[in-house]
């Protein structure tokens, strides 16, 4: 384990930014935090987390895939993929780090999504333990430990110091680069912090959220639950939950005609939208109830069914904070799961 004084954090950032683009949570003018590319003067935010999740780095909201150009009656297809540079995402919380595993299982299994894979291989993740989780946090439900965040490098921040520990070769290399600015240390202080975090975790209101009603094989049991109609009755059909979610991975592929060429790009889509997976015959999810159900069944049943029981929710709490009608996965789990946790 290595450490350095917070006073030197800026020097570390500068050092990292020499070779790779460095992104870290920074405060925005509206008071919330967002990942920003570091430049001299950018300060690491104290906020618990960013509004948008860091999935953007690997799976951006819009991404050009290829271009077509017509010359007279001919069409040229242009591959626009370019070699990526390494980049560092600093300060990723444990929940969000876990979300990359969930996305990896979608994009890195055959057929591998080359766009995602390329970004993923160039990204170095420096995670950060959560010292002050929010009431909306429920990562523990999915066996995520905010005191021991994964990633290439794990970090802990105290009032005065920051501690690093490498988990991967990439992480080792990263720490080597900043070794002149850090010093070797033992993990006493970090252990104390972990203990404090665990204490808080035990006080969180959603600590006992129960997942036993969900998982692979529960489709028949849950699909026709009358509770779906009740839960979805006021859903506005907006995409807030899906767009702030670190694990939602659906996208649409569209063409944009610039007049001179056609850009084929993909952009996030939301299963909450009425035209989601619309096909020639129309839409197979006819009302908001079906769309709503799809989202939660996917996270809590279909995904685990296909991924060794892994739920595609990391308990980050973003949807709890941002849904315009305050309907969210916790309420769904409690209602559909039979309120077992209460």
């Amino acid at each position, binding site marked *: 384990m290595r450490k350095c004084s917070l006073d030197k954090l800026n020097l570390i950032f500068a050092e990292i930014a020499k070779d790779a683009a460095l992104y870290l949570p920074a405060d*925005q*003018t*509206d*008071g*919330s935090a*967002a990942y920003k590319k570091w430049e001299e003067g950018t300060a690491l935010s104290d906020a*618990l987390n960013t*509004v*948008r999740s860091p999935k953007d780095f690997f799976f951006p*909201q*819009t991404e050009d895939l290829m271009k077509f150009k017509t010359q007279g009656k001919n069409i040229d297809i242009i591959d626009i993929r370019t070699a990526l540079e390494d980049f560092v995402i600093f300060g990723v919380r444990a929940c969000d780090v876990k979300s990359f595993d969930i996305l990896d299982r979608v994009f890195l299994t055959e057929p591998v999504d080359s766009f995602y894979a390329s970004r993923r291989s160039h990204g170095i993740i420096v995670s950060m333990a959560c010292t*002050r*989780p*929010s*009431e909306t946090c429920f990562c523990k439900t999915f066996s995520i430990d905010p005191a021991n965040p994964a990633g290439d490098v794990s970090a802990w921040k105290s009032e005065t110091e920051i501690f690093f520990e490498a988990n991967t070769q990439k992480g080792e290399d990263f720490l080597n680069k900043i070794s002149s600015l850090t010093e070797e240390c033992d993990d006493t202080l970090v252990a104390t912090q972990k203990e404090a975090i665990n204490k*808080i975790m035990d*006080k*969180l*209101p*959603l600590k006992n959220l129960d997942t036993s009603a969900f998982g692979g094989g529960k489709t028949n049991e849950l699909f026709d639950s009358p509770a779906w109609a009740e839960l979805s*009755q*006021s859903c*506005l*059909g*907006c*995409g*807030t939950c*899906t*767009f*702030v979610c670190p694990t939602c991975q659906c996208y*649409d592929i*569209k063409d*944009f005609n610039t007049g001179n060429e056609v850009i084929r*790009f993909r*952009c*996030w*889509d*939301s299963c909450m*939208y*009425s*035209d989601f997976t619309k096909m020639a015959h129309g839409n197979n999810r006819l009302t908001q109830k079906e769309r709503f159900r799809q989202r939660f069944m996917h996270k809590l049943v279909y995904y685990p069914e296909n991924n060794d029981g892994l739920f595609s929710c990391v308990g980050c709490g973003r949807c*709890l904070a*941002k849904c*315009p*009608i*305050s*309907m*969210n996965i*916790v*309420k769904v789990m*409690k209602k559909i799961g039979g309120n077992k946790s209460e």
Partner: protein
Amino acid sequence: MQKITREQLIEKASALLSNSTVSCVLGWGMGEFDYDVTPTTFNSVEELEKGFVFSDFCGANFSKYLVKKAAACEGKILVFLKPCDTYSFNQLLTEHRFDREKVYVVGIPCEGMADINKVKAICGEGILSIGSKGDKMTVTTLYDDEPVSIDAKEVLAERCLNCKSKKHVAFDELLGDEGDVIESNRFDEVARLEAMTPDERFAFWQNELSRCIRCNACRDACPACTCEKCVFDNPNSGVENKSPANSFEEKLFHIIRAYHVAGRCTDCGECSRVCPQNIPLHLLNRKFIKDINEFYGEYQAGAEEGQRAPLVDYTTEDLEPGEVFDRRDSDA
């Protein structure tokens, strides 16, 4: 801080359910915490008693829900409307978006709703409970041993700080005292932006709109946005798009959305309330309202049912588009 209580509302709703005036009630459903209420339809007195809440966090404007819920309810639906909601109610009626006969409106007084973001800005994350007594709010958190007492006024939502009316413009019945239209300072922020240089304004909006994730929450919560099919969802409209590929598309969406509701927007503030990125979208709508007031005379959308909106109206003496700026320049 609210003068009307949960119990009074349940009593009223129960009475109307019991005497069969209404067959369902649109109200606020209890959440996980004290601030995350969900608009909910209650079908019985039991359901009301179990799940109905009323607090400083019941900000949602129910008028829009009537477009779907009025038709879905078997009999009449009881809806509790705060003064600002009643303007949207009238505007929707003007546009024939639901059947008035299917709705029973109980107007309720509103002392202004709280903004949870403002509470969190003071008390931090980890809120366990929020209680309200008079002008004070008591907040217990994970990280404070003692409950924190805050002034309710301090955490009022922006739209409530600039409340334009405590008067109900549509109702079947009123609970509590009726208020008046208020002289508000709601255009001050617009005026502040107008006084900036174009470069400053451009930078301001570039910064704000760059946060947009096109979740459509503003549109989907907006009581004026009730199109059967939004142009931005319609591949045949020529402007459909799903996510902002660049800053042009960010602007396009918000300009067109504000334009489409211009003259129809009642300034209820739902757009800004629901924006996950805290973009002050209401300023775009208020700009149109301010302009309309200045160019064509004071107009409050939804003040009366059946009003003719300013952009579907004209006089032969209207000012010329070019004079818009001459006028402002001479004011400055």
